[in-house]
């Protein structure tokens, strides 16, 4: 298996451009969490012409609703949630400079097109490996919508957070091609 690529956020178009499906990546730096309810609110702000709680330019959003942290822990279990539920919102954020998304499962054509047109990448994290992935999260601070509980937006500091490139900025789709390669 090829060596993992280390990347530090925020990501530039050049960073994204080099990635290909199947690449194993270790992410470092800041990643923001948002899932269903938070995405709905972000899009409402954009539609109303109001500022977002964080600047999405160059950033990576992780689709996760962690379990509560025990005393002394940064975060509880923190694996990805299924991404298709965010498909309705993702293109708008990508158009505004979002460079990466972390989740699990396939994306629709609108998201894939936006990724190609605006140079963004979709990473798959291992669904259900929440205890393991929490090990790569150094800190977690709620920066918006605390009332949403697990769905609040958190700013995570990650170290060597393990992901796989599932959709690259060149139209590659590991979900399609991986399954085709092993189908009998």
């Amino acid at each position: 298996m090829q060596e993992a690529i280390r990347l530090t956020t925020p990501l530039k178009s050049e960073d994204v451009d080099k990635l290909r499906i199947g690449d194993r990546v270790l992410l470092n730096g800041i990643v923001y969490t948002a899932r269903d309810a938070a995405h709905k609110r972000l899009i409402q702000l954009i539609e109303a012409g109001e500022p977002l709680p964080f600047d999405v330019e160059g950033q990576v959003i992780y689709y996760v609703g962690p379990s509560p942290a025990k005393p002394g822990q940064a975060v509880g279990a923190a694996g990805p949630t299924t991404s298709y539920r965010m498909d309705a919102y993702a293109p708008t954020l990508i158009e505004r400079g979002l460079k990466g998304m972390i989740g699990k499962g396939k994306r629709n054509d609108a998201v894939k097109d936006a990724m190609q047109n605006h140079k963004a990448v979709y990473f798959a994290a291992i669904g259900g490996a929440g205890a393991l992935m929490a090990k790569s999260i150094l800190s977690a601070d709620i920066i918006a919508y605390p009332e949403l509980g697990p769905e609040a937006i958190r700013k995570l500091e990650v170290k060597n957070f393990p992901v796989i490139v599932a959709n690259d900025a060149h139209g590659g789709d590991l979900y399609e091609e991986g399954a085709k390669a092993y189908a009998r």
Partner: protein
Amino acid sequence: MREIHVGEITKAVKDLAIRSNMELGEDVLKAFEQGLEQEESPTGRDILKHLIENARIAREERIPMCQDTGLAVVFVEIGQEVHLVGGSLREAIEEGVRQGYEEGYLRKSVCHPFTRQNTGDNTPAIIHVDLVPGDRLKLIFAPKGGGSENMSRVTMLTPAVGIQGVKEFVIQRVKEMGPNPCPPTIIGVGIGGTFEVAALLAKKALLRPLGSVNPDAELAPLEKGWLEEINRLGIGPQGLGGRITSLAVHINMMPCHIASLPVAVNIQCHAARHKETEL
């Protein structure tokens, strides 16, 4: 009559809620190990190794194996000779869920269907009660994640389609849902009964230990054959391509109406959690 105080039920439910989310069953771990031997995709092998490591971390460090600690699904088997005292059965279970999810640092994942307002304590629980002979009370706690539950379906087939039609429905379902329910999955199939009973049969099928053979001689070969077919689809661990799409197919069947052929497919992600106890 044997008296059981409902306080004991609360205590037991709390304990089961925490343990089920942190201690993956040995049968599931063994299925991961076997999957690792058969998996051809390097990415798939890597994922299975991570899942084994994840289960170890959860168990040793007492954190949930998955952040989706589920809706609290509780199966209760009450002996006819049992007399419950000290309060209501439902309230005792709900209180156990409340305490378990709070004290175990488990995620509260229950909300209003429209406003999406979180209920804040992971109640209400989903409770299924069966009356059985005897003077014991059995509790099975099976937290169910949203991702895999979303991929489940019930259908009413035309009886003429027979076994072949049921198989096609099940395999088509697995194919369509691809990576979404967190493969490698366990496929619970309920056949017969009524609309709602088919779904319950499918859910109960998920509780059978992995590696066990269906005691129904008619169903055992179907489970084996359908699993082989599913694992030829190529979906693989996490849907990124590979051999091990599912760890098992479990089927429960009962008679149905002469006009009907109800079929339910309940998908279980690899975090196949359930713990039980008897009072």
